[in-house]
């Protein structure tokens, strides 16, 4: 609708200035909304409105490009030459060959190429001149480094008598603390034994609280959450990380070995009395100190006794008398450790008094190899689990010895003074590189052995086998000789006994032997003294003669 206002004006008034004046507003047109028109429309809710927070793009069609190599078969020909025309190509080539540029280049190139070809012909410059399969490592001196020390957190320090590594990778170490001085332990000594985490040497990860201090401790190799501990009061406790079970007592120091089944801890499943005369007489039984049990040979095991004898037993034997298979004598004092060589199970190592001895199962008379008498008592020993020729011992003067039988047999390859106090226990981890030793003052020292002592050398197994064979054979020969001599003696003594049956003195009794020995002794001494007297006089005469000559 057009809104117009028509006004008329005289012609003579054109061009005059327009006189504007204000006027109150007046409604010219008023268009009301027409509600009837609403029916033409529908209310639509919700309304969808797309919006995007991105740049505005132009609306050109997309330009695609791709990168690919072009197989250029014969494309370098100049434009005027048809590649298929043989004549043209040949002509082109000949033209190039005539260029001076070409000739010069070729001469120079030929010279260079010649040199290399001749080089190739004379010698193969790429051949392997040095066989690089074995890079000779500079033989490093064997070392053992102390990595950390775990100290007994209690005021009163106790000896570490048992150590055991966690079977899964050995990140934890369990140590049994107990004061071995019989009845000298102060009344406020704590009974706890600890489990240490290797990463935290300042405080133990867990404490085991038995009723009496634990003497030895071992992780169950099949179940890393349970530990078995033997305590001072003669009890065995099974510790799991949640609860603690303490069964009745057993009596191992009394000379009998008892088998316990972990599930039925109320009484021993089997009993064996360690009597060398196989009579099962408890009075004659020996005290057992150490036990060796090889999981691959479940029927046999060996016991080291207080009297210095090793008893080898068979578990599956029918009667108790047959259970003790044989005994090995050789040590003068209690055997503190006994372990089979993990690579040669027929040979085992025992440690007691001042020596360490290696035995072969077949030779019962004596050990096949032994160390010379050391300065102090050997307290514990173990084989290295990775090298068959390496074993370690700890001594009362706080020294750890590492012996390498292939390197030197007369003395330890490496001797490390671990602490001032005596070392009582030793345990090496399954990787053969880390070991822990426990001292009298409750310190467990963690040592790291150099790789030279913990990596298997080539031929080591065969060399060790040969060494053991050799020593065993030597002992066998000696044994045979001994037997021969004994037989001869016996036959001779039998003969002489027959002769003596005629005589009236009969058998020599001890007193007569003693008297005889005494008289022999005195006569020998007299002979010796007379000889010395004679020599002295002769020397004096010579001296006098010389003086006379010089005067």
């Amino acid at each position, binding site marked *: 609708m057009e809104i117009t206002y028509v006004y008329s004006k005289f012609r003579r008034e054109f061009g005059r200035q327009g006189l504007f004046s204000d006027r109150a507003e007046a409604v010219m047109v008023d268009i009301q909304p027409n509600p009837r028109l609403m029916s033409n429309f529908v209310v639509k809710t919700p309304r969808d409105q797309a919006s995007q927070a991105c740049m505005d793009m132009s609306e050109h069609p997309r330009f695609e490009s791709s990168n690919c190599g072009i197989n250029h078969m014969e494309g370098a020909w100049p434009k005027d030459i048809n590649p298929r025309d043989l004549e043209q190509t040949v002509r082109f080539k000949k033209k190039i060959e005539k260029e001076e540029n070409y*000739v010069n*280049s070729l001469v120079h190139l030929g010279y*260079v190429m010649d040199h290399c070809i001749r080089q*190739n012909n004379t010698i193969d410059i*790429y051949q392997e001149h040095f066989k690089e399969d074995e890079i000779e490592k500079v033989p490093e001196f064997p070392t053992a480094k102390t990595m950390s020390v775990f100290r007994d957190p209690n005021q009163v320090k106790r000896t570490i008598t048992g150590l055991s590594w966690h079977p899964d990778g050995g990140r934890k170490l369990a140590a049994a603390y107990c004061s071995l001085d019989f009845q000298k332990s102060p009344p406020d000594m704590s009974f706890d034994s600890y489990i240490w985490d290797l990463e935290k040497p300042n405080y133990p990860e867990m404490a085991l609280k038995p009723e009496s201090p634990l003497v030895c401790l071992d992780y169950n190799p099949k179940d890393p959450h349970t530990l078995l501990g033997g305590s001072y009061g003669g009890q065995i406790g099974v510790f799991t990380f949640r609860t603690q079970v303490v069964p009745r007592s057993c009596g191992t120091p009394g000379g009998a070995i008892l088998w316990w089944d972990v599930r039925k801890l109320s009484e021993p499943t089997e009993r064996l009395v360690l009597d060398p005369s196989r009579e099962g007489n408890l009075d004659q039984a020996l005290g057992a100190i150490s036990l060796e049990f090889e999981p691959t040979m479940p029927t046999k095991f060996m016991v080291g006794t207080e009297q210095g004898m090793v008893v080898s037993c068979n578990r599956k034997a029918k009667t108790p008398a047959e259970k003790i298979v044989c005994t090995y004598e050789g040590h003068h004092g209690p055997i503190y450790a006994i372990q089979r060589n993990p690579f040669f199970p027929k040979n085992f190592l025992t440690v007691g008094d001042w020596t360490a001895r290696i035995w072969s199962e077949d030779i019962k008379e004596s050990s096949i190899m032994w160390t010379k008498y050391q300065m102090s008592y050997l307290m514990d020993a173990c084989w290295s689990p990775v090298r068959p020729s390496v074993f370690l011992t700890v001594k009362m003067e706080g020294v750890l010895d590492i012996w390498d039988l292939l390197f030197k047999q007369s003395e330890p390859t490496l001797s490390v003074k671990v602490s001032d106090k005596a070392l009582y226990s030793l345990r090496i981890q399954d990787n053969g590189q880390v070991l822990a030793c426990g001292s009298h003052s409750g310190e467990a020292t963690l040592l790291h052995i150099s790789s030279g002592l913990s990596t298997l050398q080539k031929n080591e197994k065969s060399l060790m086998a040969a060494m053991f064979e050799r020593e065993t054979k030597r002992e066998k020969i000696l044994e045979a000789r001994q037997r021969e001599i004994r037989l001869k003696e016996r036959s001779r003594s039998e003969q002489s006994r027959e002769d003596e049956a005629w005589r009236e003195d009969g058998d020599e009794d001890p007193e007569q032997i003693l008297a005889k020995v005494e008289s022999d002794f005195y006569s020998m001494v007299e002979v010796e003294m007379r000889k010395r007297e004679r020599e002295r006089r002769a020397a004096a005469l010579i001296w006098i003669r010389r003086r006379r000559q010089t005067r």
Partner: protein
Amino acid sequence: ADAEETLKRIEGHKGVIGTIIVNSEGLPIRTTLDNSTTSLYARLLRSFTTLARSAVRDVDPQNDLTFVRIRSKKQEILVAPENNFLLIVIQNPSE
């Protein structure tokens, strides 16, 4: 004449299987091998040499490529580069 002599001498060396001369565009000028092999070698080694040269010169602009030896299990490929041309020799190395 000199060029001919040089080439003949090279081709006559012990162990040389073939010789190719390639120009700057990758065109084989002279060859002792068959066509397909020649064009194959020419094309491949041309780009290879260019790449090698640019690598050497990128590291040190004063430097330049003098020789390229590719030793493979069965033979050795020797490439002598020049401004315009490439001399390729395939040799059986003395074992």
